[in-house]
């Protein structure tokens, strides 16, 4: 298996186990590259990539930009807040205009679920989903699984609990698909209101007790409480949430084993995770960020090799 089975990365759901292993293998090499004195390779010097961010992002956007630059691609950036989208232009018009300027690949974050899939069916450029609403965030899931593999040697057979707002989280959904495909056991944990009905159909177990979940797992992925997606109150107060589902040092130390703590960022310190835990040696939060660049380089490289000349 030397090539991805897909032409676009719209979600983890479309990937096979072999695809993910190939991405990891490439990421190993790119991680080596980004730790060299000169962190750049010329592979994509004749490729142009557009980063379309219809929704705010710092980390993902910077990570994609760095990945693209380290592969020597030319890039154009676009953010919805300062563009014609505000003037009422449709998504397909915006993108077609950008593609007329001869762009080979599009990295897109959009507030609507399915936006990346919609685009991939209608344009000739390769599409990478950098988050589509509450649907998927495939590159985050891949870098999370890659970080687990790096820390524990393998993902298969490991127990991972995803804690927090599962209902609104694209990170949770992509993580569930990705971890399951790699053979891990997955549990979701959070207040009843933030766990979608029928989530168990995806093959995950459900818990509403953080301590129980932590005692079971090898890895805890603490999701951010997405205050911007909570039009109604799903829990009484942030204080109550952090008392019941926040991870603190005391809780971590009460376990009779060493678990790994992850967080996709940005952290609400003191809400889902305390500063002590976030900065402890059990946390691999900053490794995740470093691996993010390597994983994105791998995906861009593999998709770029499918661009027709």
């Amino acid at each position, binding site marked *: 298996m030397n090539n991805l089975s897909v032409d676009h990365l719209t979600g983890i759901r479309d990937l096979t186990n072999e695809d993910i292993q190939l991405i990891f293998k490439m990421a190993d*090499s790119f991680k080596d590259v980004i730790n060299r*004195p000169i962190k750049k*390779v010329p*592979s994509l010097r004749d490729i142009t990539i557009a980063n379309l961010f219809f929704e705010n992002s710092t980390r993902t956007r910077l990570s994609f930009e760095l990945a693209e630059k380290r592969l020597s691609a030319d890039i154009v950036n676009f953010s919805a807040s300062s563009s014609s989208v505000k003037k009422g232009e449709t998504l397909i018009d915006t993108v077609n205009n950008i593609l007329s300027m001869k762009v080979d690949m599009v990295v897109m974050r959009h507030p609507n679920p399915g936006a990346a899939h919609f685009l991939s069916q209608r344009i000739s450029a390769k599409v990478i989903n950098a988050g589509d609403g509450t649907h998927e965030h495939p590159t985050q899931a891949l870098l999370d699984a890659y970080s687990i593999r790096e820390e524990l040697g393998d993902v298969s057979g490991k127990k991972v609990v995803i804690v927090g707002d599962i209902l609104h989280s694209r990170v949770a959904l992509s993580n569930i698909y990705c971890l399951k495909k790699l053979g891990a056991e997955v549990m979701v944990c959070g207040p009843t209101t933030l766990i979608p009905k029928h989530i168990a159909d995806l093959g995950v177990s459900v818990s509403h007790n953080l301590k129980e979940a932590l005692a079971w797992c090898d890895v805890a992925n603490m999701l951010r409480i997405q205050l911007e997606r909570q039009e109604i109150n799903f829990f009484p107060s942030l204080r109550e949430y952090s008392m019941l589902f926040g991870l603190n040092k005391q809780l971590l130390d009460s376990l009779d084993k060493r678990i790994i703590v992850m967080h996709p960022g940005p952290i609400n310190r003191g809400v889902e995770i305390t500063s002590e835990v976030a900065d402890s040696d059990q946390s691999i939060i900053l490794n995740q960020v470093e691996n993010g660049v390597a994983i994105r380089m791998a995906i861009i*490289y593999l998709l770029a090799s499918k*661009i027709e000349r």
Partner: protein
Amino acid sequence: MEKQVILNAKQIELTIKRLCHELIESHDDFKNSVIIGLQPRGVQVVARLKNELESILGHSIQCGNLDITFFRDDFRRTEKQLLPSVTNLDFSIENKKVVLVDDVLYTGRTIRAGLDALLTFGRPAKVELLILIDRRFSRDLPIQADYHGKSVDTLKMERVSVDWLETEGIDQVLLFTKEGNE
């Protein structure tokens, strides 16, 4: 395909010995020199050189492997996906004399990529090229080796393959020619 042995096990051994003595002639005790093999096929040559050099010199020398995949000039120009191998350089090449090593020198494109890949690790004092089999008169780029194992004249449709005891089970260099193509 007709095949013809260019070098057998005994000849490979002699050639490696000669190359090592040539290297010592210009690199003395290798205190300021390193040997770097190009992945994937230069690595075996380096292993043999290292063995022989260390037994002559009586001390260890620094050797590494360099992967050039991301520096190749045929990305998206071939059907098959270019997959990388491991780069293994746990020393600085800054101000060192570097001997790049590969098994076969043909178009020179691999060496061009190897030079670019090497320079991302620093500024060596000097770079030389050692080649086991030099396919003469077939260069696409102006690149020549400083140390040759053996030079052969080949046609474009022919193929040279270097086999090693460790990987293929036998030490030999073969030339494959198409039938009726004398």
